[in-house]
């Protein structure tokens, strides 16, 4: 049992990175990781030794993410309003991000959750198509098309941002 827990502990940095790419906001991402870890511990018995802890944990987290994405429809616009007490008092939220990172993180948040997850899984987390398709629970062809469309959307969003930036410069 302790071996399993040690393996889970070792995966936390990766889980945090994946959550951050899905949700952007650091606290929200860590909340997702927390939910994932809690669920994982409840299901510790169901985790087959031999199965990669990473794949097991990513699968749990992805299910949590997608389930919630489907539930939030009605409360919709919630976080579009930056309304934490700290933010309301004008404390800059993201300190460590440079402008280029911010742009690509913004763009990533703007693509659909399914495509975002597929793209991140392969491009950042380094899973193979077969592994990613397995974690996301979709056929390989679906995964492929999500990755391709995700990349295309990301590119066009980044281009839009760059265009707006250059217009602003021209207007000055």
């Amino acid at each position: 049992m302790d071996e399993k827990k040690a393996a889970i502990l070792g995966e936390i940095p990766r889980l945090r990175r994946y959550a951050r790419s899905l949700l952007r906001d650091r606290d929200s991402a860590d909340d997702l990781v927390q939910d994932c870890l809690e669920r994982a511990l409840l299901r510790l018995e169901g985790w087959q030794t031999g199965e990669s802890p990473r794949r097991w944990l990513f699968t749990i987290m992805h299910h949590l993410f997608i389930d919630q994405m489907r539930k939030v429809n009605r409360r919709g616009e919630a976080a579009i309003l930056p309304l934490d007490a700290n933010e309301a008092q004008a404390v800059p939220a993201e300190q460590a991000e440079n402008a280029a990172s911010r742009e690509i993180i913004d763009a990533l948040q703007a693509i659909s959750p399914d495509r975002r997850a597929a793209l991140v899984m392969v491009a950042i987390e380094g899973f193979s198509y077969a592994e990613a398709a397995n974690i996301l629970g979709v056929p390989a062809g679906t995964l492929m098309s999500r990755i391709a469309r995700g990349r295309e959307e990301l590119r066009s969003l980044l281009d839009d941002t760059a265009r707006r930036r250059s217009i602003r410069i021209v207007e000055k």
Partner: protein
Amino acid sequence: MTRRDFSERDIHLALDGELPGDERAAYDAWIDANPEMKAKSARYTADRAALRAAFAGVLDEPVPVLLKQIVRGEGATKVAARQSRWWLAAAAAAVLVVGGLGGYFAGIDGIGRDDGADDQLAEEAIAAHVIYAAEQRHAVEVPASDKDHLQTWLSNRVGLKLVAPDLVAEGFQLVGGRLLPAGQGKAAMLLYEDAKGQRISLFVTADSSAKSKGTYTADAGGPEAVYWLDKGYACAVVGSLPREQLAAVAKRAYGQLVAGLAS
């Protein structure tokens, strides 16, 4: 060398290391002969590098103690009792998708809620707004001309240090306030009006143990509530303004309310 037709799809396969080894040479020859595809491949490669760079720092961050405690079984958190807030960020993403990319979620109806505290607050705030904002002579119990008394009285009754936010910069003047029931406790309602006679209300209660924030509309086309719940207080701003304007007003009101509570 394998002969087959390559397409844009293969750019992704190549980039992701999924291209069979025996097709690599033919692929390289194909892409060298297609400047457009070559540019695309270079662009995707660059975007991927930027994505990796943007998130690389996360792996070096110290792992929050709470997360380690959970795994070690040291944390006393109860799964069911804890409020998860990460869906808020998920909601933001969903909105961007609906707004920007052709309604990815358009076909999915609102599914059941996990918890009712925020809905209840929003519904009470909207109900109060619908009733009292429509009143001309009896909209408030204590008028803005008696603001000091209004603040002291409502603070004592509700059990919070309540400061009526100054929303003049957003075009809204305080009309006054009243005391209302809310859940098991009491709520303060502050009513504001702009030059055109449009009204918004702030609904504040100390009766909250949940932590949440969001927007809520009871009926399509009806007033909308922007709400926050935190431990020890909850607040909703209600009005029929365009969403961006309501959000701006709400943000200003919230900043002052929180500052007032802490003063």
